[in-house]
């Protein structure tokens, strides 16, 4: 662990509170997010509307840094491939 992490910074506390504020009773988990992430990325790239399931994926991404990291990487691949075509 980070030895200097005993006091949370204002940014960390704000992020924590933001997560609490946007929490919903029903959220999709990481497994469901990864299952749909390809479809989500393709729809986002195409500027298409999101259905209910994909909207819940978007909400999950606002709370999960790891899934967001993987989504951003996939988006980068699709955007690069799209430019080449």
């Amino acid at each position: 662990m980070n030895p200097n992490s005993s006091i949370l910074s204002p940014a960390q506390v704000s992020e924590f509170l933001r997560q609490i504020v946007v929490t919903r009773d029903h959220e999709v988990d990481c497994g469901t997010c990864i299952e749909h992430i390809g479809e989500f990325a393709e729809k986002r790239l195409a500027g298409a509307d999101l259905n209910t399931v994909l909207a819940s994926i978007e909400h999950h991404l606002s709370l999960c840094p790891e899934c967001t990291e993987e989504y951003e990487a996939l988006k980068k691949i699709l955007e690069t491939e799209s430019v080449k075509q």
Partner: protein
Amino acid sequence: MNTTEINWIESLRSPNLEEQATAMKSLRDILLKGLRIALGGRGDVSEAHLEDFAQDGLLRVLDKLDLFQGRSLFTTWAQSVALNTAFAELRRKRWRDVSLDAMMEQGEHLAEPSTLPDDSLGASEDQSRVVIAMRKAIAEELTPKQRAAIHAELDGMPFDQVCSLLGTSRNAGYKLLHDARKALKRCLEEAGISGNDIQLAFTP
């Protein structure tokens, strides 16, 4: 699914071993190209790592082939599986020296002023009120595992590593955090602190 998509699945499962090997090599090349685009600029990822990630990703794709439902292009789905495999490995390496005891120890201090001072958000009375209510809710409503997981995440530990240390799956770990957030939100609301009050507390 279009014809090209059906061909991927059929070729990867083909009883004709030559056709299967050709499909596997093509897919591995596609995964490697994608991984180079996504991870190539990172200082902690060499070309040898990328080759390993592509190979591991290919094996994972083959293992999960039954789960592909055609909601995206096959190659998009395969890239997402390979990325998930690669990131899990990178996160594991970066945080492998952290122990469960150290994580639990940090979590025990989450509800203390030494970790969450009254002025965490600012010096105003409203901001302090939110922080004090949150500390009380953390102390009274959360389990030691929830406190540890929240503190570790805020400290930057990857969620995969948090779950690994706690001995849970990523889905079970997400539920642990989701339940914690719901409990804290409910407690804050019961203390008369709404989402709007919290948003205002962010404002200097």
